[in-house]
């Protein structure tokens, strides 16, 4: 317990920051104290380089979850840029460090724009193809690159007594800068968005995250430090050739370092980089030098993926946290959540349309004209016409499988429209990507909540982007205005004290409220609610209704899908009824309730009006539509 206590003492407060600082000071002082430990300096500087590359890799592959298998391509690009320019102008290559970073940035951006519009396996294939293709290209364009003859980089100009000491400091400085850069990225809304993409890319798009831009930018950002370091590396090596500079093995060690230390954490890749360099060097010196290096790297990669997929640091942290948790009493979060009070705030949509133009008969806020979408032979949405007036709480009801969730997906852009038009606040939106619809002020919640479960509640709420502005992406997400706003919204839904909790640990009902707070961060004009009352306890239902009314009074329109008919009739006006992909009735609750067509539609055995349990068990039809 004493050790644990000490660790806890260190992890809290300022002393925690002292430790990396101390380590940095030691590393800075080392060559001063032992100026002639040249070999150790040589090993350490390679460790700095590997750690730097792993930290950079982590930005795209750890934060955003897009694994790059060919990340050493940027080292090669930087090295060749520096080497060739230095040779051409006969000057010190270090002048070209910014150019190396720029070349890496441009290359990553171009490649990223090709493949990162996509999901899945395309990216990982491209990264490895890019690396191997660069080997061939650099070999073949021998007029420029000298091909397989390689490039002679000028030798360092300083006295040989200094040996690699200047390189040691350069790589150390670059490593420190890269860690600082990664830490900054992680703190910004951009970083939060990257994590959101890793957790749930569709959901990220729905809360205004321009996923393509984020991914391309993350890839480019992860290339720049390596490109800069590549120039120094060229100077250090003094000779470049295509195979050595664009080495696949280097990529493997980068990936292994980051995975081993802890993908997605800040310090994990640093730790991994040191461990991998030092272990390889020790194995090389004391292992007698065998052909087994590849074998060991390969096996290590397999074992880490299988048994330590999150890496050393998260594993240790999780264990520490468990022991800590065992030592304390666990607070029952659900009860606490219910008990805690809401703080009323002004949410105010960006331009509350109804409030601003009271005199005019405004055009409907949302207008769906003849929307259709089919999956194979099934016409899930079959020519829907629906309008939502500004300032209204419109309900969308209908039997299971009538196309409600599909319609939501069409409106928010999670699915593409087959035919028809969708207009929102005077803009045709059916061809826009989801994030642009969100930027127009359209927010949604999901039938089964889709929070980013491994992020904190606060991070979840701070992630959304109400506008496409680049400046907003760079805003601090941990403190400052954005975080303040997110805390306010959490207070507003009554979950202020759970900000630091992991979102996945909240109760289902609390998650629904967090998701609502998340949508509010978009400063929406309209919110689509998919079964807000589904699966949550009556106390929370009441709170939900209270919040919806509160927001509506401030000018936010709602389109609500809900099975709890009494709730619908109490809350909403008008009510639209969807059946077999078409709107069969729309009007005030009293009229709709009496409509014979509605009654007929609801006569099916599936309809269980009073049952608040959410969909999946009861709604196989709806599920299969989504799967298609």
């Amino acid at each position, binding site marked *: 317990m004493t050790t644990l206590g000490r660790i806890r003492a260190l992890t809290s407060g300022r002393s925690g920051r002292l430790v990396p600082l101390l380590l940095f000071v030691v590393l800075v002082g080392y060559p001063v104290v032992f100026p002639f430990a040249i070999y150790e300096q040589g090993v350490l500087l390679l460790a700095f380089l590997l750690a730097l590359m792993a930290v950079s890799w982590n930005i795209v*592959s750890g934060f955003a*979850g*897009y*694994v790059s*298998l060919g990340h050493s391509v940027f080292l090669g690009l930087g090295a060749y840029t520096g080497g060739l320019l230095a040779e051409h102008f006969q000057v010190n290559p270090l002048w070209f460090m910014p150019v190396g970073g720029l070349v890496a940035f441009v290359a990553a951006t171009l490649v990223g724009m*090709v*493949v990162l*519009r*996509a*999901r*899945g*396996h*395309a990216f*990982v*294939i*491209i990264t*490895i*193809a*890019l690396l*191997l*293709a660069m080997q*061939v*290209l650099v*070999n*073949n364009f021998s007029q420029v690159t000298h091909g397989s003859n390689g490039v002679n980089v000028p030798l360092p100009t300083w006295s040989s007594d200094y040996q690699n000491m200047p390189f040691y400091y350069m790589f150390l400085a670059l490593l420190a800068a890269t860690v600082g850069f990664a830490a900054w990225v992680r703190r910004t809304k951009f970083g939060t968005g990257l994590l959101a993409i890793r957790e749930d*890319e*569709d959901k990220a*798009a729905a809360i205004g995250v321009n*996923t*393509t831009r984020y991914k391309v930018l993350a890839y480019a950002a992860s290339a720049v430090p390596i490109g800069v370091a590549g120039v120094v590396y060229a100077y250090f090596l003094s000779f470049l050739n295509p195979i050595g500079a664009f080495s*696949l093995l280097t990529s*493997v060690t980068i*990936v292994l370092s980051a*995975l081993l230390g802890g993908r997605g954490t800040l310090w994990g890749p640093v730790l991994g980089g040191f461990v991998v360099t030092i272990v390889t060097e020790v194995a090389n010196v004391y292992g007698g030098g*065998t*052909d*087994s*290096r*590849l*074998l*060991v*790297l*390969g*096996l*290590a*990669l*397999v074992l880490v*993926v*299988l048994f330590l*997929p999150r890496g050393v640091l998260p594993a240790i942290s999780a264990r520490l946290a468990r022991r800590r948790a065992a030592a304390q009493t666990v607070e029952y979060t659900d009860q606490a959540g219910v008990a805690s009070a809401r703080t009323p705030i002004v949410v105010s949509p960006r331009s509350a349309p109804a409030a601003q133009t009271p005199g005019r008969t405004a055009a409907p806020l949302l207008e769906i004209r003849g929307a259709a979408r089919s999956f194979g032979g099934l016409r899930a949405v079959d020519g829907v016409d629906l309008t939502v007036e500004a300032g209204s709480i419109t309900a969308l009801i209908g039997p299971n499988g009538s196309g409600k969730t599909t319609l939501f997906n069409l409106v928010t*852009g*999670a*699915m*593409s429209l087959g035919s028809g038009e969708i207009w929102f606040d005077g803009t045709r939106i059916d*061809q826009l*990507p*989801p994030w642009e619809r969100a930027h127009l002020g359209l927010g949604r919640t999901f039938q089964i909540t889709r929070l980013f479960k491994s992020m904190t509640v606060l991070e979840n709420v701070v992630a959304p982007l109400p506008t496409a502005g680049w400046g907003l992406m760079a805003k601090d997400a941990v403190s400052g205005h954005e975080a303040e706003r997110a805390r306010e919204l959490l207070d507003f839904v009554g979950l202020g004290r759970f900000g630091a909790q992991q979102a996945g640990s909240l109760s289902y009902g609390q998650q629904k409220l967090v998701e609502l707070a998340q949508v509010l961060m978009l400063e929406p004009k309209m919110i689509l609610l998919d079964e807000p009352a589904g699966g949550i306890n009556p106390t929370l239902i009441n709170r939900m209704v209270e919040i919806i009314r509160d927001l509506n009074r401030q000018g936010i329109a709602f389109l609500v899908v809900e099975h709890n008919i009494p709730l619908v009739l109490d809350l909403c006006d008008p009510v639209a009824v969807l059946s077999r992909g078409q709107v069969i009735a729309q009007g005030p609750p009293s009229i709709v309730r009496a409509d014979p067509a509605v009654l007929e539609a609801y006569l099916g055995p599936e309809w269980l009006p009073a049952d608040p349990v959410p969909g999946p068990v009861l709604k196989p039809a709806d599920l299969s539509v989504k*799967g298609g």
Partner: protein
Amino acid sequence: MTQLVQALVLGLLIGGVYALMASGLTLIFGVMNIINVAHGALLILVAFLTWKTWSVTGIDPILLAVVMTPLMFGVGWLLYKGVLSRISGSSPGMSVLLTFGIAITIEGILNVTAGNKFRSATPSYFSQSFRILGISLPKAQVYGCIAAVLVLGLLYVVLAKTWTGRAIRATAQNPSGAALIGIQASGVAALAFAIGTATTGVGGSVLSVLYPFFPASHYDWISRLLGIIVLGGMGSLAGALVGAIVLGLAETLTATYVSLQWSTLIFYAVIMIVLLFRPQGLFGSRLRQDVMA
């Protein structure tokens, strides 16, 4: 003219062999949604085993496919059960990392046991050719292509006519639907992986005769095969066949009329261009899932 016909014939012969190798890779992707980067390394492993057996016993290397194929079926089954099944359901990134790790491990094993040398099996017919109208058909290439086409045909029959094959195809097309009619996804995945790996048994034995290889050759092969299945459409067997022939021809023609130096780039270029303009490839639809735009 002769040169053109010669190039086309060589391209077709190579394409047949590529088709066999690529069909295993695409089958695994179709069923399991995993890109088996270790496919190339398994090919080289088989090529080495074939070469070793040939050099010790003198048995014809292409005939050795009869032994290698069931052997690799077993290896595939064990790999799935022992390693790949452990990560089913994790992100594409992790599965690629895993198969990449396996590939490097195999390369490392070959480095340690066999050494980093070029090898190639050279049966007596190696430097002979059939000659038709001034066109040379190298015997090794012809036999290799015949073996490949036979196995490819067998594979299609198995997938089309047997219950197992239909289960595999059903799972590839619609996993949840297949589960509904009682197909056990994990069993099918193991089978598909084993069959996909078994194709390296034939592919590798043919490779040992047609191409000199060394442990690191697998990068070269996996890039070619990825180019082929990306072009054909990931997961599509017909696509693999067409992709293989198209790229076999493209490679030979580039090498003949431009330079061998640029022919390797064809595969990378194809990957880039296909992903940019037609991400689903010629026949497939699964690789690139666009966020709606």
